[in-house]
């Protein structure tokens, strides 16, 4: 029998969460002191959860592999965070945010979870403001908003291009306050390498102290994985170098189902690859699509001339430019959702219209925005008949005020001034909607093991809308888990501290040390990155922006070969009892090599196109939607949850049927 009980509360959609909170069990204050909780990860999800749970009185241990909790990958988020505040009076509401998110996710998410997310979104902003997060404000001193892709209201709160940083520092300061009080014990430079399951319940973890190499046992009554996404399975992505799947994968191998692993978000606006040395890709925030226009030349001759350096973008007259998003999607234009924008870029580049040496780049152009803002400023400042230079100057100042840090970042990396020359961008792996399957309470299929933030599969369906990951991470950590974990822990008030000197801990620790020993004793010839790069290429080519059955089958075979070779030929220098970054990488890549195969299996199974998952076999063949993704609700309106069967490449599929009681399933059209 399948263990997939989503535990969606009864009742009307807008009452579910309130009623659920009112009825679930809670742990009395005096008893919370007797309960230990492990929180792995200190990103938005982990830091907010750890701080909140400690404030409530639980004993919390928090872990991260960076040298400080403040450096979790959430710090890098740029654009913003959504909330249904309707401050702009543009018709926003909880329902609209809910609806946009379900539609944006291409009807592959669980309605009840998404509704809750929209419901608590407004609280998140209040909480962050109270913590002193310096959001952008208007001249009246009120909070400012901007628009993000896939929606028609302005509900995104931001702090220049560093929203993730400011939100994380807010959550981090709440966390450090609890660390100062002794309510949270912080373990930085620690990597969790296994979950320990005792009598069917998660009761602790095995972690490696990354400085001394010591293997440690930590017991607890519940374990929360807030360990982020696995986009680095593609080697090149916008994720931080250390982002990895290890914690989630170890949980998977201990019985937690992995859901929709193939749902990957490829972000349309990233800086293109510059060479083989490339170690990661840099995102140019989606907020740029508010003002930037995306185009390629109309003719193949112009495109070729640009690639050969004979022409520049600015040499192409307006009439010879193809603003392909505006052309194909007049209603949303440059603000279509990410999956749609990425595929459209790929389509143009595959057809030969790419504008850099590799042919894999399109323009993101601020020329029109600079002119528009320049004229506006001239009006505001009563400058009559401004010269084109003056307009440019004024407009450039406005664009710089809005996006300055992003433009600087671009110039730094590419070595070209984006105020003068249109930026070149290309899609890159950015986010993983898939992750550990969780029920409404954020509990995985292993009792006592919870997953929050990007590590779970919950709210974004097959495609995440911009500015919604920060929202979800903080919703999970501040406003969901503090309630739902209590319901589970209510049974544990008399359990007493978890003994770590037991067979289950022995076994888990041994598995960890055996693996480390294998790597160090394996006198192979190639460094870890070599294998990681090869895996990444297979994934990008065959399980990336477009997928087909044949390619996916080939990918599975190739990944198996790489994995076999990896174990035979990887070289990991140094020892286990020291700071050893190659050893850290080896463990992570070993897990990516197993995950990659499951992603391909999942993509192969899902013979429909939805959101970020585009199966070439499943597209509209004619009519006005020709070439657009074709969903198959009759056969695939489910979340695919995979159960580990003891070996990579062997997994059973469990289906959580998705029912849509409130939102009507329709073709997602942005035309």
């Amino acid at each position, binding site marked *: 029998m399948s263990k997939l009980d989503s535990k969606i509360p009864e009742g009307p959609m807008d009452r579910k969460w309130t009623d659920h909170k009112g009825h679930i069990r809670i742990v009395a204050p005096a008893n919370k002191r007797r309960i230990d909780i492990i929180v792995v990860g200190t990103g938005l999800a982990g830091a*907010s959860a750890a*701080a909140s749970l400690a404030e409530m009185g639980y004993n919390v241990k928090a872990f991260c592999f*960076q*040298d*400080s909790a*403040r*450096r979790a*990958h959430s*710090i*890098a988020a740029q654009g913003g965070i959504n909330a249904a*505040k309707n401050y702009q009076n543009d018709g926003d509401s909880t329902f609209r945010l809910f609806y946009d998110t379900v539609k944006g996710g291409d009807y592959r998410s669980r309605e009840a979870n998404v509704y809750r997310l929209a419901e608590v979104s407004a*609280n998140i902003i*209040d*909480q962050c*403001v*109270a*913590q*002193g997060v*310096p*959001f952008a*404000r208007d*001249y009246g*001193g*009120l*909070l400012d908003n901007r628009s993000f892709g896939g929606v028609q209201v302005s509900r995104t709160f931001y*702090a*220049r291009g560093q929203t*993730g*940083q*400011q939100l994380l520092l807010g959550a*981090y*300061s*709440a966390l*450090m*306050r609890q*660390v*100062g009080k002794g309510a949270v014990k912080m373990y*930085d430079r620690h990597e969790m390498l296994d979950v320990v399951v005792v009598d069917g319940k998660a009761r602790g973890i095995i972690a490696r102290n990354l*400085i001394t190499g010591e293997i440690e046992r930590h017991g607890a009554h519940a374990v929360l994985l807030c360990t982020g996404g696995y986009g680095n399975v593609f080697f090149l992505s916008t994720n931080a*170098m250390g982002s990895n799947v290890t914690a989630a994968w170890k949980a998977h191998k201990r019985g937690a189902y992995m859901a929709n692993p193939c749902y990957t978000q490829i972000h349309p606006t990233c800086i293109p690859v510059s*060479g083989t*040395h*490339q*170690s*990661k890709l*840099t995102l140019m925030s989606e907020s740029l699509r508010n003002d930037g226009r995306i185009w390629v030349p109309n003719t193949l001759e112009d495109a070729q001339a640009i690639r050969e350096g004979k022409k520049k973008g600015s040499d192409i007259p307006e009439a010879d430019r193809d603003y392909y998003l505006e052309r194909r999607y007049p209603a949303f234009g440059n603000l279509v959702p990410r999956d749609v924008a990425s595929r459209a870029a790929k389509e143009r580049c595959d057809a030969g219209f790419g504008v850099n040496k590799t042919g894999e780049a399109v323009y993101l152009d601020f020329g029109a925005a600079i002119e528009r803002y320049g004229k506006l400023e001239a009006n505001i400042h009563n400058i009559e008949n401004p010269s084109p230079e003056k307009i440019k100057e004024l407009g450039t100042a406005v664009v710089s005020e809005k996006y300055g840090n992003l433009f*600087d*970042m671009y110039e*730094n*990396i590419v*070595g070209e001034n984006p105020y003068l020359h249109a930026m070149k961008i290309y899609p890159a792996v950015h986010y993983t909607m898939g992750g550990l399957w969780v029920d409404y309470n954020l509990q995985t299929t292993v009792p006592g093991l919870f997953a929050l933030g990007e590590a779970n599969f919950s709210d974004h369906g097959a495609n995440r809308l911009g500015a919604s990951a920060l929202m979800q991470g903080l919703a999970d950590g*501040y*406003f969901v888990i503090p309630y739902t974990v209590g319901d589970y822990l209510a049974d544990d008030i008399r359990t007493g501290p978890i003994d770590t000197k037991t067979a289950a801990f022995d076994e888990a620790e041994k598995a960890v040390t055996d693996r480390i020993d294998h790597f160090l004793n394996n006198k192979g*010839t190639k*460094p870890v*990155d*070599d294998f990681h790069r090869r895996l990444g290429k297979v994934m990008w080519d065959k399980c990336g922006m477009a997928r087909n059955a044949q390619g996916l089958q080939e990918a599975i075979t190739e990944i198996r070969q790489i994995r076999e070779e990896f174990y035979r030929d990887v*070289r990991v220098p*140094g020892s286990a009892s*020291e700071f050893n970054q190659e050893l850290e990488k080896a463990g992570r890549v070993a897990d990516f090599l197993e995950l990659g195969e499951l992603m391909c299996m999942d993509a192969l199974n899902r013979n429909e196109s939805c959101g970020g998952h585009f199966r070439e076999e499943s597209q509209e063949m004619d009519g006005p939607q020709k070439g657009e993704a074709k969903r198959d609700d009759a056969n695939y309106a489910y979340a695919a949850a995979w159960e580990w069967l003891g070996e990579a490449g062997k997994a059973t599929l469990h289906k959580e049927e998705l029912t849509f009681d409130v939102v009507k399933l329709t073709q997602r059209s942005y035309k």
Partner: protein
Amino acid sequence: MKLTLKIWRQKGPKDKGKIVDYPVNDVSEDMSFLEMLDVLNDDLVRKGEEPIAFDHDCREGICGACSLFINGEAHGPGRMITTCQLHMRKFKDGDTIHVEPWRAEAFPVIKDLAVDRGAFDRIQAAGGFVSVNTNGNLVDGNALPIPKADADTAFDAATCIGCGACVATCTNSSAMLFVAAKVSQFALLPQGKVEAKNRVLAMVEQMDKEGFGNCSNTGACEVECPKGISLEHIARMNREYLAASVTKE
């Protein structure tokens, strides 16, 4: 291009450490400095040698993990950038580049170029927060308008990435710029005012305990700070500190 790297190698906290020379070829100017080190490390591993340890994560100038002292400058040549944002086009064929870790008593070396900056976390835990619990019933975010200018200055202070370049650059290894940035952010915002006095006293006390030196106002920190944190924040913190000390019971 071809370069000669002179890199600090130190096996562990107790090892004395030394500079080791590494010639590198085929460096492309599009590489970032850390990608250049990746290529070197790749080569070292293939040769059976130990790669060079250094901290890094986001590689886009925001996490504050990277921390190299390059040719005598924290985060290397170039202003307002971190080491991971430094690109090789800043160097030329034939250059010799010295690479060392942050040097400060409060930042002990862990291995090679990686140091322990835990002191910053402890300073933060001493008072770098607003004491507000998670609460679903807080007042509406817009109930408290904040003048744009204050919000913007608070934001500027809040962009500190906690990298420690200010400490590494300072002849006295002072952490004033880092601490001032946090104190100043909260001092500028109404939410932070309530605890302003305790905050500044507690954070400064912890800073002193950690073994950071005194500030002698040379301003070197501001120059090397990748986020352009201004000395004005130090001035603001000094005012806050003075006021708090005077009225302290």
